[in-house]
């Protein structure tokens, strides 16, 4: 049934400024979820969020295992209680971030959460718009060719606000 609530959200613009696995997925899930409900969706990737758009990094995003105080050993596959901390020194050992990321990706796949490149394609095919921040592109010396094909445009902050007219802006 169509939503008759006059206050119903019609458009969202989501800003993704983090390039870790746990920093990127919330933006993707919220944008895709918006499209599923017929809500217009834009995602604006800036700073390290650009890692989610770069061809070279799109499928190798990692969970932050150092300096991530929220991380614990309960990652389902390890079977520890959720209160067991994940020692940051353990996280610094080479390969640990890879392992943790691999485990998390496996768990996500079980829940039907796609890998980042497939997710971007899904959102784009669903009519969501994907934008990269011009200033961050300049800073990292990136060209549009360095980004995956689903990127619609490279925008300045002003242009982002323009295309966001009438939308709720979400900073994840």
């Amino acid at each position, binding site marked *: 049934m169509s939503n008759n609530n006059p206050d119903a959200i019609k458009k969202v613009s989501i800003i993704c400024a983090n390039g870790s696995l746990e920093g990127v997925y919330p933006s993707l899930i919220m944008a895709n979820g918006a499209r599923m409900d017929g809500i217009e969706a834009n995602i604006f990737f800036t700073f390290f969020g650009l890692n989610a758009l770069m061809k070279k990094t799109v499928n190798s995003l990692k969970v932050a295992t150092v300096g991530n105080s929220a991380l614990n050993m309960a990652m389902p596959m390890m079977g520890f209680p959720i209160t067991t901390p994940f020692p940051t020194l353990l996280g610094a050992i080479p390969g640990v971030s890879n392992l943790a990321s691999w485990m998390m990706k496996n768990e996500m796949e079980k829940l039907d*959460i796609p890998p980042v490149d497939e997710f971007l394609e899904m959102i784009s095919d669903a009519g969501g718009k994907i934008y990269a921040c011009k200033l961050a592109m300049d800073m990292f010396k990136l060209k549009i060719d360095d980004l995956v094909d689903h990127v619609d445009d490279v925008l300045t902050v002003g242009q982002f606000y323009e295309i966001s007219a009438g939308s709720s802006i979400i900073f994840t």
Partner: protein
Amino acid sequence: MSQIEIAELNVDLDDQGYLTDHNQWTKEIAVAIAGEEGIIELTDRHFVVIDFMRKEFKETGTGPSIRRLTKQSGVPTKELYALFPGGPAKKAARIAGIKKPEGCI
């Protein structure tokens, strides 16, 4: 077709307009609900989606995620959104006579 006319087809809907019993579903009901959702004609491609959703629901007790739906039914994402404009998961579930989908993907 209005809510009342759908009701004349002897079908029980919950307060959000989803069938409470998927066994009551008929193609006639699907057409009626689709009309109410603004889909004038249900094509064969709509029924590929609807049939897949009903099959999935009978097997798992819940509708498929969009990703599963597109991968398994052979209806790509773009087409799915074109077939059910303005929110494919919920619209298709309603037309297919199954529960409102609960997944986030």
